[in-house]
């Protein structure tokens, strides 16, 4: 059967062992890439002709914002898989994602505000991006709140998974409506991230940081995933080996 490899792959002991083995393969490259990106972004990249050295916030803001969206998408996909195929491991992935995503959404908001003050002259601007990001933070908080509210893990998994899926359907609608609303009240955004004319010396560190953060996410996910998988297994004998080892 074509499904056997899939089931083997998704079996908790296999996932646990695989996650443990793979973690360093993501963690160390992530550390290297982020270090290189920092060096490139803070030292090598020339100052922006308009924003001077202030634009360097880009190198932490953009990866954080990217994380906030990517993690949410991952969470929603894992949640949908868990809901449809009743796969515990998928629920474990979704549950692992939430705190990571929420913290980076927070970072994106703070770094965005710190960038906004010198560029727009205000920490907070009701810009569609910032507003959507704030709503995203509330979606994460709602997800974690719902999980915390339900004692039974299985029910918490399924209820929060449903919420994640509902959220992912709503995110584009929310973003569209905020953009629509924003267009009524002010001129289009002053600033665009990722101008097409960005010189290579500026772009390269950004790409390094984006890739580094993505790998960091995978590494964090793998560590958390092991814990979540353990919490969902009850009488399995492989736990004895893991725990005593």
């Amino acid at each position, binding site marked *: 059967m074509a499904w056997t490899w899939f089931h083997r792959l998704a079996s908790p002991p296999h996932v646990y062992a695989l996650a443990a083995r793979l973690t360093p393969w993501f963690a160390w490259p992530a550390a290297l890439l982020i270090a290189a990106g920092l060096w490139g972004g803070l030292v090598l990249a020339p100052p922006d002709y308009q924003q001077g050295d202030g634009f360097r916030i880009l190198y932490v803001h953009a990866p954080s914002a990217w994380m906030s969206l990517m993690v949410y998408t991952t969470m929603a996909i894992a949640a949908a898989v868990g809901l449809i195929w*009743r796969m515990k491991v998928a629920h474990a992935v979704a549950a692992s994602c939430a705190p990571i995503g929420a913290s980076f959404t927070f970072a994106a908001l703070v770094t965005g505000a710190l960038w906004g003050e010198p560029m727009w002259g205000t920490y907070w601007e009701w810009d569609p991006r910032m507003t959507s990001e704030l709503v995203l933070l509330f979606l994460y908080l709602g997800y974690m709140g719902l999980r915390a509210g339900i*004692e*039974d893990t299985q029910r918490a998994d399924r209820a929060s998974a449903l919420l994640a899926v509902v959220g992912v359907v709503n995110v584009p609608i929310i973003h569209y409506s905020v953009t629509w609303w924003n267009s009524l009240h002010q001129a289009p955004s002053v600033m665009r991230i990722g101008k097409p004319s960005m010189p290579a010396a500026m772009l390269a560190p950004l790409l390094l940081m984006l890739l580094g953060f993505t790998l960091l996410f995978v590494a964090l996910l793998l560590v958390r995933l092991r814990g979540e998988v353990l919490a969902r297994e*009850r*009488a399995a004998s492989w736990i004895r080996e893991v725990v005593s080892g």
Partner: protein
Amino acid sequence: MPVEQLEVENLHLWRGERHVLRGLRFALARGACLEVCGANGSGKTTLLRTLCGLIYPEEGRVLWNGEDVQRDLRAFHAALAYLGHEPPLKADLTARENLHYWIGVRRRLGEEELSRALARVGASSWCGRRVRTLSAGQRRRVALAGLALLHVPLWLLDEPTTNLDGEGRELVGTLLSEQLGRGGMVIAAVHQGLPASVSPVTRLELAA
């Protein structure tokens, strides 16, 4: 026509850290009654809820006429009636209104038939009162009237005789015997045992 039957294969279920159902298996044919016994917390209610598909078992299957009930839950639900600890009645509606809505959602129901069912459980004189003002035993009787009105082959009952007086317990016995006599099936979780008039009864003892 296939013989109507309920079959349970290797059912495993955990609630929190407790392994409640451990590889349970049994089969129930038409006209058979299963009495599920066990101490409080031994998983009687959990078993009933798993059988009717509210709880998804971690392992094992429930088969109805040879088919996994999870494949077409709605068709399976149309063939069963489940009564929980508490009669599913609205305190602010009258007994009659309650049955009108509860049973009406599932099947067409004539006023006359409704009156007859209420009369059978001795509710004619008080079926116009709000359930809030009824005693626990009276509420139980209303629920029994609803059960009889559903006309479904499989009954899953959680403690059907609690709060009932001697006469009420006899009524349960009669209703159950009728259901079995018609080729229906009954699974009842009981603490004190079913009325003696119901037979044949198979006992299933759940260990705590």
